[in-house]
């Protein structure tokens, strides 16, 4: 609750991820050329990658502010369980970063000539996958909280963990765009998201406790 209000009030974090997403998508045609056939082929992958990087951008803010002003210590001694705090943080991150990305992705899909059949599946795959990105990212943020130059390390730790989500998410979007059956990647993606939401907060909480001592 408070985190969402904070992220909104602090400005910055909210728009920054979206702008980054937009810029990545705009830059891609400059890099690969303007042929619409090529763009529409790589559109699902680019959109997924852009969303993933935009997600990554705001991860270090998850705990940094609370760490600096001492809130994290105080929260740790409050009646809220650490697992709950971590989950709420991940949820707040998703609502302020993941959800807007999901909503704006179809618009950017137009820029990349995404085939018409792909819009629904792209949005759906992002909606399914971005929560996992937030939860995994929260784990990474908990690992690096309090480190002076944690941002870069955070990316190094989190990106390999993003591999399965990216593969299944982008695969689902790609198959959707090309009109293939998407059941398998959809189920696997949903499985990863449910699994991470259910299990990873325990690891994040344990890591956060270690970092607070």
């Amino acid at each position, binding site marked *: 609750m408070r985190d969402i*209000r904070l992220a909104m009030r*602090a400005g910055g974090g909210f728009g920054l991820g979206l702008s980054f997403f937009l810029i990545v998508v705009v830059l891609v045609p400059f890099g690969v050329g303007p042929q619409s056939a090529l763009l529409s082929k790589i559109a699902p992958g680019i959109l997924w990658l852009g969303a993933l990087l935009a997600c990554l951008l705001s991860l270090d803010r998850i705990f940094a502010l609370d760490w600096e002003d001492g809130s994290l210590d105080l929260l740790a*001694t409050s*009646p*809220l369980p650490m697992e709950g705090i971590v989950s709420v943080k991940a949820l707040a991150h998703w609502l302020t970063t993941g959800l807007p990305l999901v909503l704006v992705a179809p618009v950017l899909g137009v820029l990349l000539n995404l085939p018409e059949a792909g819009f629904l599946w792209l949005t759906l795959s992002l909606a399914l996958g971005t929560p996992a990105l937030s939860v995994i990212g929260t784990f990474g943020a908990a690992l690096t909280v309090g480190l002076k130059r944690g941002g870069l390390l955070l990316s190094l730790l989190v990106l390999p963990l993003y591999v399965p989500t990216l593969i299944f998410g982008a695969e689902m979007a790609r198959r959707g765009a090309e009109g293939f059956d998407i059941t398998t990647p959809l189920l696997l993606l949903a499985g990863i998201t449910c699994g991470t939401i259910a299990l990873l907060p325990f690891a994040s909480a344990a890591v956060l406790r270690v970092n*607070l*001592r």
Partner: protein
Amino acid sequence: MLTVTDLSIARGGIPVLEGLNLRLGAGQAMVLRGPNGIGKTTLLRTIAGLQPPLSGQVHVTPESLVYAGHADGIKPTLTVTENLNFWAQAFGNHDISAAIAAFALGPLAARPAGALSAGQKRRLGLARLLVTGRAIWVLDEPTVSLDTDAVAMFAAAVRAHLAQGGAALIATHIDLGLAEAQLLDVGPLRAKPLDIEDFDGAFL
């Protein structure tokens, strides 16, 4: 309410204090003294359960304790009321009016906390203690950047808290005017370095 027996604590893997015993009953306050770097903050964090002790025990119900460290945990973009409301909710309470009154925060209630002075922020941080409804206050240098009026306000709040059967463990260098508080100087409890040949788990 709070019993500490034969406690040894470490900071960054190095023992700093050892053989520490203290008891704190309802209505009692204790002031910790000791030179900088002796480990007062580490001790308070250990008692608050943020950090495991090296050895010894801390007997306390974790649900009866609230900790306030050097930082106040105040969000600059939220107003004073919103800040207090958040902490009240986190501890399952709702009424913040008493806390606002005790630290004379009424005129500042609608102000964003970022616009407060250092002393005002500290008052807000201390008002947080009241909204938690916890019995044992563990406070680390609570009077930093407070003026004499505010220190008196704080002393009054502590006294009222003790009168309601609470307890307080305070690390501070200034005189709070709490005549009833016991004094504990942790200076003599500095950990002795271990024998250099004792080369086991802790490496020293």
